[in-house]
């Protein structure tokens, strides 16, 4: 008697169960992607747009790093090679370049949305703080990435940027020397900027994105900052020693 063909749906469910039993991934994904949210609009898509652009930057950056040569005599040549000769190099470099601007623009919009919705308030202060750190680190990505093109504009813009750091009192000159890896722009400056740009800062941003998302899922999405018209309340005299009743902001989601 022939064995009946297995039902593909059953096989898939069994596979999911097998993985779920050993890792809990299915629960994790369900809680992350299928969580309940309050009525949202386009403004709530800015954060996930940012995540998408970050993934785009990480992917294209990784690919560009395979060809890029972070040395004073080779950097510009390797950029020329990526742009003019490598298959689709112009496209990947263009995506990375425009993606960088896009990330900064989306960051400002996202921060503006959070600010004007009052979404930084209790209990989401730490979400705002981790977001602010991501903002600062993204600015540092812009600074360190700008030099890597190693043309005249990149060089002199970075000279100016490092010297602006140097005008800070007391620590400024040391920060400049730290960034330049020496007293003036030298052979080590570009490799230092490169290592900061592709290892240290993106690693820190990735870790902070994890914390940021953890908090977003844990605390839920902030609803629109609208509230119904207050109903006329019965006039009560405050009693001595009893603090007024205070409700936390609506916490949606779980």
């Amino acid at each position, binding site marked *: 008697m022939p064995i009946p063909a297995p039902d593909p749906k059953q096989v898939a469910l069994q596979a999911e169960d097998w993985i779920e039993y050993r890792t809990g991934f299915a629960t994790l994904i369900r809680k992350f992607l299928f969580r309940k949210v309050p009525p949202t609009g386009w403004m709530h898509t800015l954060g996930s747009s940012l995540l998408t652009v970050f993934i785009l930057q990480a992917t294209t950056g990784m690919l560009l790093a395979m060809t890029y040569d972070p040395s*004073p*005599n080779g950097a510009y040549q390797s950029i020329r090679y990526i742009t003019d000769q490598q298959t689709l190099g112009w496209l990947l470099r263009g995506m990375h370049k425009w993606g960088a601007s896009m990330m900064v623009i989306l960051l400002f919009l996202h921060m503006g949305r959070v600010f004007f919705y009052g979404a930084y308030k209790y209990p989401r202060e730490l979400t705002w703080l981790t977001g602010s750190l991501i903002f600062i680190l993204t600015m540092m990505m812009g600074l360190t990435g700008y030099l890597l093109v190693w043309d005249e504009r990149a060089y*002199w813009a970075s*000279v*100016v940027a*490092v*010297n*602006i750091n*140097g*005008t800070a*009192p*007391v620590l*400024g*000159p*040391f920060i*400049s*020397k*730290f960034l*330049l*890896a*020496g*007293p*003036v*722009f*030298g*052979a*080590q*400056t570009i490799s230092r900027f490169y290592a900061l740009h592709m290892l240290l800062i993106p690693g820190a941003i990735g870790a902070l994105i994890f914390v940021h998302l953890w908090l977003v899922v844990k605390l839920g999405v902030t609803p629109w900052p609208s509230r119904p018209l207050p109903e006329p309340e019965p006039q009560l005299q405050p009693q001595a020693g009893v603090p007024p009743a205070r409700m936390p902001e609506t916490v949606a989601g779980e």
Partner: protein
Amino acid sequence: MAEATRGEFLSLTTIGLGAMIGGVIGVPATAYLLAPVTKETGFEPAFLGPVDKFTSEQKFDPTPATYVEDAENTATSSGLAYVHYTGQKNTDWHAEDAMFVVFSNRCMHLGCPIAATPGGFQCPCHGGVYDTNGERTGGPPIRSLDRFQWEVRKGSELWITQRWSTDIYGGMVHYYPVKMPGQPTHTPGPGWIPDVLYPHVTYTHGPAPGPVPLPKA
């Protein structure tokens, strides 16, 4: 001696071991990263050109001369100096009637390259203006142009041997250890204030030479 349970002892041991591992990784990593901040570098003497290349100047029209501090890294260690011929004969760079004044082309606002003009120097980035002594006359720079100490070698070769920051006040050119652009060498009040607020970290050198009067107009 205080008693500790087995659990407390193991917790403390784990924390101690963790701190040790952190130190073994963290201390050398920090020292490695910060090494360039404390490392001291001297200015490498550089050849500008034969002396007679610079002596044809009539009105103020300083001759640009490129130089290379580190021959292995021409891409980053090249610089531009402006050699101004004063018409005098003295080859002592520090004398009042010195033959040349060698200016750095680094703007003292934020380090852009300046260009010579009939009236002095101008910076294309943010509009800094300097007169023929390198003294700031307009725009955002906060002090006068750096100058190079120079000497004539083998009778006919012009070399720069040291770099100094300058500030011009009281009719004198005052010399200071090199500071980065945007950092004051001289402020009103006690002399240690600019040195504490803006320590000079660029080059190591000996004591700065004394002030020299400006040439008579």
